[in-house]
Every structure is written in structure tokens, then in C-alpha cells.
């Protein structure tokens, strides 16, 4: 009891971005959740300015398809695509996890923590697999 009176517990009120990002140690499930939101926002913002123009070039003609991966622009494009590919994979994997949680599958603390770790790992693994596949074709 003397401990709690001499040294009050830290209180986390009004969670803001700084608190979430810097001070508060988020559990893995919390990291998956905020990354789900961030990746969704990135995909939303890139949609009409990066993703659809790229799609237009990729299906436009064999020449515009071939031009996508070439030169220094092709290298920059691959870096951007790597980020967007991860965003997509994370959003997909985390989304499937949330759908199973909606069905009350894996709701207890241990399995939800485990599935959160699987989501983080699987999205990175899938990103690498499809980056190799995609960049091989570019």
C-alpha cells in the first residue's frame, strides 16, 4: 500500500497520437488495429493519384506496361509499390482477423494476441512474396 501512495500510477487519459505512438506501449492487437487504419488511409489517398494511373498504364498497351519498371523512375515506383503492397496485405490480413473476431472466433486474450502476431508476420511475408513476383514481371 505504501508503494501506491508514494508513487501514483501513471494515468493515460485522452489518448492522442503522441501518446499512442511514443509513450503508451500498445499490445500487438492494438498495433494491428492502428496499422489497419493507417494502411486503409494510405490506400484511400493513393487510389486516384497513384494506383489507378498505374493501373491505366499497366493495361493500356504492351509499351506502357513495359515502361513501368524501367529506369530510375521504375526503381522509385518499386519503392512506392512496396509500401502500398504492404498496406494492402496488412489491411487484408487484419481485415480477415477482424471478420473472424466478429464471428466470436479467437476472442480470448491468448489467441487474439497470437492472431495479431500472425497478421503482422503474414502481411510482411506476403508483401515480400508478391513483391518478388511483381518486380520480376516489371
Amino acid at each position, binding site marked *: 500500500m505504501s508503494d501506491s501512495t508514494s508513487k501514483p500510477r501513471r494515468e493515460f487519459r485522452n489518448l492522442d497520437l503522441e501518446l499512442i505512438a511514443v509513450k503508451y506501449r500498445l499490445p500487438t492487437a492494438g498495433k494491428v488495429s492502428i496499422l489497419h*487504419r493507417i494502411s*486503409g*488511409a494510405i*490506400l*484511400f489517398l493513393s*487510389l*486516384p493519384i497513384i494506383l*489507378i494511373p498505374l*493501373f*491505366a498504364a*499497366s*493495361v493500356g498497351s*504492351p509499351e506502357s*506496361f*513495359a515502361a513501368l519498371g524501367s529506369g530510375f523512375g521504375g526503381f522509385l515506383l518499386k519503392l512506392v509499390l512496396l509500401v502500398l503492397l504492404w498496406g*494492402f496485405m496488412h489491411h*487484408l490480413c487484419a*481485415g*480477415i482477423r477482424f*471478420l473472424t473476431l*466478429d464471428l466470436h472466433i479467437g476472442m480470448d486474450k491468448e489467441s487474439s494476441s497470437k492472431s495479431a502476431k500472425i497478421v503482422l508476420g503474414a502481411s510482411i511475408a*506476403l508483401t515480400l*512474396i*508478391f513483391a518478388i*513476383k*511483381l518486380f*520480376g*514481371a516489371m
Partner: protein
Amino acid sequence: MATHEKIGTKRLVVGAHYGSFDFLVQRMTAIILAVYSVLFLVCALFTSINYESWKGFFTFTFFGLPMGQISASLAFFSLAWHAWVGVRDIWMDYVKPAGLRVALHVLTVLWLIGSVLFFANIVWSL
């Protein structure tokens, strides 16, 4: 129910489950997108990607129907609706001034309608 808790004669201000519809839309569109994405990724993984095979994802036909275009359009429409619910949630969580929030909602809708038209124009002229 006191009259001041309603807008007009029917609409409740709170507690009428208006969020349930968006909740369900978010899940239904998520399932459509997940199915389309997984099929797309599996096809991509087991075919060699070149211009013809890539274009074929969006132009294949099934019994004479342009199923590549139809499925891509359905998926993209789901994507836009899914993004609307999700992005609106972000604004509602972090942006409190009503005027700014409405402005962001309008911009979001324009952004997504523009995307749908842009995408439809590309896919249906293949």
C-alpha cells in the same frame, strides 16, 4: 419518447441503430473485397505475369459475358463504399469542428466518385 428527441416525426436523434447499416456495409464489402483479392492473388501467384496475362485478369469472358470487367467493377464499387465508411470513421474520430468535418466528408465523396469513374472508364474501354 419526448418530441424533442426526434427530428421531424420519425427520425430519432440517437439510439435508432443508424450505425448498424454502415457496420453491415463495411463487413459485406469487406467479404467481397477479400474474396476478389484472394482469387486475384492466387491467380497472380500461379501464372507468369506479362502484359497479356495481366490484361486478361480484367478482360476474360465467361459464356460470352465480360466477367473480368463485371467482377472488377463490382470489386471496385465495393472498395469505394468500404473506403467511404472507413474514412468517414477516421474523420468522425479525429475531426471535431462540424464545418471542417463536413468539408472533409464532401472531399472524400468526390475523391471516391472520381476514382470509381476513372476506374470504370479504364476497365470498360479495354
